[in-house]
């Protein structure tokens, strides 16, 4: 075993939490003297906790050292890519639509189109399920699937959910619902839509046809040192990236050119 010791506190995105937990487990096996505690609330909590000094690593679904819609950049923080996360627009099984264009998605999520028949489906009101503001999934989906267009914020057939799990349950159980989530959460009880005729698959992400994906980042205050550095190196290592990370259905960063 290694002589490395210390304490690592990780906070931030809940979508990256499974990855963090798995990596922590493996890392601790090799470095038993290192204590790792992880929690998750929302992506923005990650860099904020790092800035406050209450976390060593802030997990976040976008590059928080740059400005993104709704969030300013965090000065003095370094972003480390740890995974590639594909996102998919999903609908309830009963919806007869398989494919939507970017324009149609924008219209649906901004509330302009209210009925499935307007986009080629049967005559039924569209139920839009959205993630709450601040979700990394939402930021990515907005930037990459909607080209930055705004979401609606009110409506009789509009609701927001708190987590990927809630999104999954809502889309599965609500007829005529549409939502979006990390590709890994898509189950057989819902339908992932093609966007502009491209299916959301790992292959399409890697070959560049499917655009709706983003990197997951670890933010640190300046360059990391000690145990934190070792942990980030471990998570970026080939062993982890091609092993557990793949098994968790994320895409290794090395796969992207």
């Amino acid at each position, binding site marked *: 075993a290694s002589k490395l010791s210390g*304490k690592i*506190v990780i906070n931030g995105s*809940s*979508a990256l*939490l*499974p*990855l963090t*937990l*798995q990596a*922590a*487990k493996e890392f*601790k096996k090799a470095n038993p003297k290192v*204590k*790792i*505690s*992880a*929690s*998750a*609330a929302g992506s923005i909590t990650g860099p904020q906790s790092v800035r*406050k000094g*209450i976390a060593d690593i802030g997990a976040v679904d976008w590059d928080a050292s740059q400005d993104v819609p709704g969030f300013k950049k965090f000065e003095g923080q370094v972003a480390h890519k740890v995974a590639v996360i594909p996102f998919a627009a999903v609908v309830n099984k009963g919806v007869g639509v398989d494919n939507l264009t970017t324009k149609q998605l924008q219209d649906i999520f901004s509330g302009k189109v209210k009925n499935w028949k307007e986009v080629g489906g049967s005559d039924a009101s569209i139920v839009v399920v959205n993630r709450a503001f601040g979700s990394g999934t939402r930021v990515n989906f907005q930037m990459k699937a909607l080209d930055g267009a705004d979401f609606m914020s009110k409506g009789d057939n509009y609701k927001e959910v*708190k*987590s*990927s*799990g*809630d999104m999954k349950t809502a889309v599965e159980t609500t007829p005529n619902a549409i939502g979006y989530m990390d590709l*890994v*959460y898509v189950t057989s009880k819902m339908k992932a839509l093609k966007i502009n005729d491209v299916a959301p698959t790992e292959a399409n992400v890697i070959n560049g046809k499917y655009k709706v994906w983003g990197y997951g980042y670890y933010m640190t205050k300046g360059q990391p040192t000690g145990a934190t550095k070792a942990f980030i190196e471990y998570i970026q290592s080939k062993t982890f990236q091609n092993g*557990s990370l793949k*098994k*968790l*259905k994320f895409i290794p960063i090395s796969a992207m050119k």
Partner: protein
Amino acid sequence: MSAGIQKSPFVSSRKSGNRLKNNLFTGLVWTVGICTIIFIVGLLFLILEKGMPKLSLDFLLGLPDEIMEGGGIGPALFNSFYVLIISLVISIPLGMAAGIYLAEFAPDNKFIGFLRVCVEGLASVPSIIFGLFGIVLFVEAFDIGLTIIGGAVSLAFLNLPVLTRVTEEAIRAVPQEMKHASFALGGTHLQTIRRVLIPVALNGIITGICLVAGRAFGESAVIILTAGVTTSGVMWDFNLLSPGETLAVHLWYVQSEAIVPDAVEIAEKSAAVLVFIVLLINLLFRIPLWLNARKMR
């Protein structure tokens, strides 16, 4: 035989009115009661039915897994008990002492009345705010990170108001004569409280503790913020500074973010275990009451 009262004078002449209402009322109460029983049994069945049969010791004591099926809940389950016990050890004496103060020592003035309302108000503060308070206290001020002790203390704070008020009410409900009898025998206030007021009020206090313990066991928001969503990854870790994911948090995590293929099953099993344990806790706290009742035969 009496001439004043005719034959069978007690068969009501107003057959309809009162009797009917009474029967309707009795019927209604029974209906609501039975519906409640059916509802609770149904709910328990719903929760236990899916999870209970699949339970195994491996699951109860095993370590969780992020990738493979068959992960366990061992450390989380252990933490649940650990956190619950610590939080109760903190909140029961504190809450009871504060309740006793309000019931026995506090002067009867406006300020104390105001305080009482405040304590009730505090019971309505959402748990997430106690979580934020915990962060300010333990993560920021004491800088100990996400720990079992931080979670347990925050949880204790969450439960304090309810315990305080329940204790106060229970002690107030003890008849004055009991208190006077003890004082007249030369008992000090402390002796009277310890030997008469608390034993007589025990029923109410235990109700309060059961309500509070159940809530603490099922609480997630506070723990997520103050004790984290990880465990130290080993069984039987008594270190108070270890991260302290509890079973309820694990359930939340599995339900909302986990990627493991058997997430649904783990959630079902965890829920079953939680409910089952809360039942056990309830029974455990009632043992003193039963013993008490038995002694009185």
